[in-house]
């Protein structure tokens, strides 16, 4: 029995265990999602995160230890972002035709994401630091963390809100738009990409490369716009 415990202590120190848990939990979550024919509540990111959080809590493992292994997966986000240029290139001609509608929709979407968080958060009595951490939640993680820091939020809390926003958008975005009668997958892709960044983009790619390209474009553009709009709107509203 003590041999088993020692083996665990040894493995828990190794990045390999947490890397395997990350990929394994996701593989299971992905299988569940496919087996349920894409049931929205079984979003693979959400299910994988819940499985891993439960495992870490049960084994009293802290996040830093887990991240020793998970960082190898996390690192690939950078190269993946760079490679979004390829589906974007494939859709370039179509996107060029729509540049004005896309730009206006981007500005409306980005501003409504920020202002609605500010207004609803205030109405519900959230403390200022929490609201400031929520404002850039539609932008991709590194942008959102930088912006939160700039307006008095807590960057690592923002990272959590960004992921939760992405999961919300990926889970509920398309069902909501369908209920509102939207059938154009370009519009669904772009709207979820603007409001719910890479997680919604990943979801859009599961639908089609074309929807994914629209989502990726929305995500990339809103990363830039959120960085500009959050400080501007906070200043205009005179929040501080």
């Amino acid at each position, binding site marked *: 029995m003590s041999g088993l415990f020692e083996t665990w202590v040894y493995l828990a120190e190794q990045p390999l265990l947490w890397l395997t848990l990350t990929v394994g939990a996701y593989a299971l979550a992905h299988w569940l999602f496919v087996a349920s024919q894409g049931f929205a509540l079984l979003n693979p990111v959400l299910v994988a995160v819940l499985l891993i959080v439960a495992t870490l809590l049960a084994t009293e493992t802290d996040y830093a230890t887990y*991240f020793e292994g998970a960082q190898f997966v996390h690192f690939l986000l950078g190269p993946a972002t*760079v*490679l979004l240029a390829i589906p974007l*290139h494939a859709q370039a001609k179509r996107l060029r035709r729509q540049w004005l509608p896309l730009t206006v929709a981007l500005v409306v979407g980005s501003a409504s994401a920020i202002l609605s968080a500010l207004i609803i958060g205030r109405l519900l009595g959230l403390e200022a630091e929490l609201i400031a951490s929520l404002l850039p939640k539609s932008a991709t993680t590194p*942008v959102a963390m930088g912006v939160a820091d700039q307006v008095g939020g807590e960057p690592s809390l923002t990272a959590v809100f960004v992921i939760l926003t992405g999961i919300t958008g990926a889970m509920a*975005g398309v069902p909501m738009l369908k209920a509102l009668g939207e059938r154009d997958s370009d519009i669904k892709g772009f709207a979820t990409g603007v409001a719910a960044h890479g997680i919604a983009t990943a979801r859009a790619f599961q639908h089609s490369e074309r929807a994914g390209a629209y989502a990726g474009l929305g995500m990339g553009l809103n990363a830039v716009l959120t960085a500009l709009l959050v400080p501007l709107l906070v200043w205009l509203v005179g929040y501080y």
Partner: protein
Amino acid sequence: MIAFVAAVLGLQLAGELIARWLGLPVPGPVIAMLVLFVALSFRAQPPAALSQLANTLLGHLSLLFVPAGVGVISYLGRLSEQWLAIGITLVMSTLIAIAATAFTLRCLKRPEPDTKGLDNS
């Protein structure tokens, strides 16, 4: 293939350097994506090996967000105090942003000459 792996990492590195030197609030990989997009616009098709690399990595894009998502574990205490208000704000605001973007685009989008982009998904 390996040459393109090196090229993508090199681009990302260049993006990080540009962001840092110019003090831009945009992350390095986003700058690198724009640089690659501009570079590709001189060609009809990206190199086949590069497309293959993109398909491999983007095909499992969701997986790459899992480690950051597990970060929620460090904030369970803080979030549990105001979880309902935070949850309502976050979900409503996200859905409002999606609806606002989609509605604007619906009103302004030019009709597509080819496929109309309609489907039943």
